């Protein structure tokens, strides 16, 4: 179903397609093969990336594909004034699949409109990060056995964070019990995200305090609250403690909860959580490989 498709937003996929992706990812865990031998995947990262770029590269190579690309705009002819459109035309003639990250919202859609080959959005500004959401949902399913009927808290900068927005969008494909949107007032989820929740009849609550809702939550999705997003340092200092996941908070919740984080983290997760059953973020990062392998193979139309 995904053969030849562009992946711009997780909202472009149906629940059935996500379930097919997840079952393929299960088969990709530990897989090494040559099913994409002769394929070239372009990794066009106009913005810095560690996890997304390296895991796409690793995923492609574990399927036998080659990769080309760059990891910053400075190292390309963009620095000489080339437009994104021209760069995409060039990549389209060199590669079979294009993975693109860019600082401007809508860049991946523009690339998809230009390229003949499939484009995968590796993150466009604050808008979408569909493959991160796939990995996040896959991790929940792997650990909890289902995505449905669980309560979620999505915590942090919900206004600018593309991973948080994409995770919320992804949850609307399923039947979550309730989603708590935990953020300072100035960093609440954007109106377009709220609109999708409302349209799809997903129960949600906007709140400022994680500790107030933790007792009702199965999945805590932490994201970073960036100091520079606040109008004043005082405002930041007032709220920053509310957006930290501590061991005490997890233990006192009385829930069998897990903590996700798209990483990199700064100090929003207590490091004492790392070795506990609550920590799912390292497994989440590792799941980037099988999920991206599954996505590449399904888009290529070649399955193991």
């Amino acid at each position, binding site marked *: 179903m995904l053969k030849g498709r562009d992946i711009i937003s997780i909202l472009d996929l149906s629940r059935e397609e996500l379930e097919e992706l997840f079952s393929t990812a299960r088969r990709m865990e530990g897989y090494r093969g040559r099913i994409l031998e002769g394929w070239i995947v372009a990794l066009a990262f106009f913005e810095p990336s560690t996890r997304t770029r390296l895991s796409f590269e690793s995923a492609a190579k574990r399927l036998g594909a080659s990769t080309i690309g760059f990891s910053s705009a400075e190292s390309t002819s963009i620095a000489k004034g080339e*437009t*994104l459109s021209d760069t995409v035309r060039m990549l389209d003639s060199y590669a079979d699949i294009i993975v693109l990250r860019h600082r*401007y*919202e*809508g860049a991946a*859609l523009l690339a998809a409109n230009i390229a003949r080959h499939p484009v995968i959005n590796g993150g466009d*500004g*604050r808008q979408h990060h569909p493959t991160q959401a796939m990995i996040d949902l896959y991790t929940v399913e792997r650990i909890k056995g289902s995505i449905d009927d669980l309560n979620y808290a999505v915590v942090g900068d919900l206004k600018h964070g593309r991973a948080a927005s994409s995770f919320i969008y992804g949850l609307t494909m399923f039947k979550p019990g309730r989603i708590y949107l935990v953020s300072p007032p100035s960093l609440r989820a954007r109106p*377009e995200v709220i609109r999708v929740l409302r349209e799809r009849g997903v129960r949600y609550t906007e709140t400022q305090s994680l500790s107030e809702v933790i007792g009702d939550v199965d999945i805590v999705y932490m994201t970073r609250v960036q100091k520079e997003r606040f109008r004043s340092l005082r405002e930041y200092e007032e709220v920053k403690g509310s957006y930290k996941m501590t061991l005490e908070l997890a233990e006192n919740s009385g829930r069998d909860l897990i903590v996700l984080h798209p990483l990199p983290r700064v100090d929003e997760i207590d490091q004492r959580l790392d070795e506990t059953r609550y920590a799912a973020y390292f497994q989440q990062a590792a799941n980037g490989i099988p999920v991206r392998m599954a996505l590449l193979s399904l888009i290529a139309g070649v399955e193991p």
Partner: protein
Amino acid sequence: MTSIRVEEGFLLGPLEYRDALLLAFAANGAQVVFMDDGYYLVLQDKPGGSLLASAAVLNPGIILRRAGSNAYERVAENLPGEIEGLAPCPNPTCITNQPREKAARRFRVLVMEGRVAMQCVYCGTLIMRDDLRRMLAASLRVEADHS
């Protein structure tokens, strides 16, 4: 050009016919007043205000009133699914606002809580009532005659 002062609204104009229609689509309950020398758009502030019958406000569509006439003319019953080339997206980091990238401005037309809103196809930014008005006014570079 003659200025028309309007209660509960403000004046934009002159406009190309196409733009006037698109604006009317975008602003639920707007009326376009047709003049011999161009089109003027009057955005209505309140549902059921003095200029339009409340039925027209509640039912999104395009209402035209020709100059010198008191009759309203419904020229389109339904909103378009998408409109193109209307105005710059208000999000400065939208790809359509990058001058060297040739990304056409495209907006989905939505009805939210009984009012028309638009959503940029590229960056997903939702543009609702006041923002929509500001965006349209700014894009047309006209002297808005606020009442």
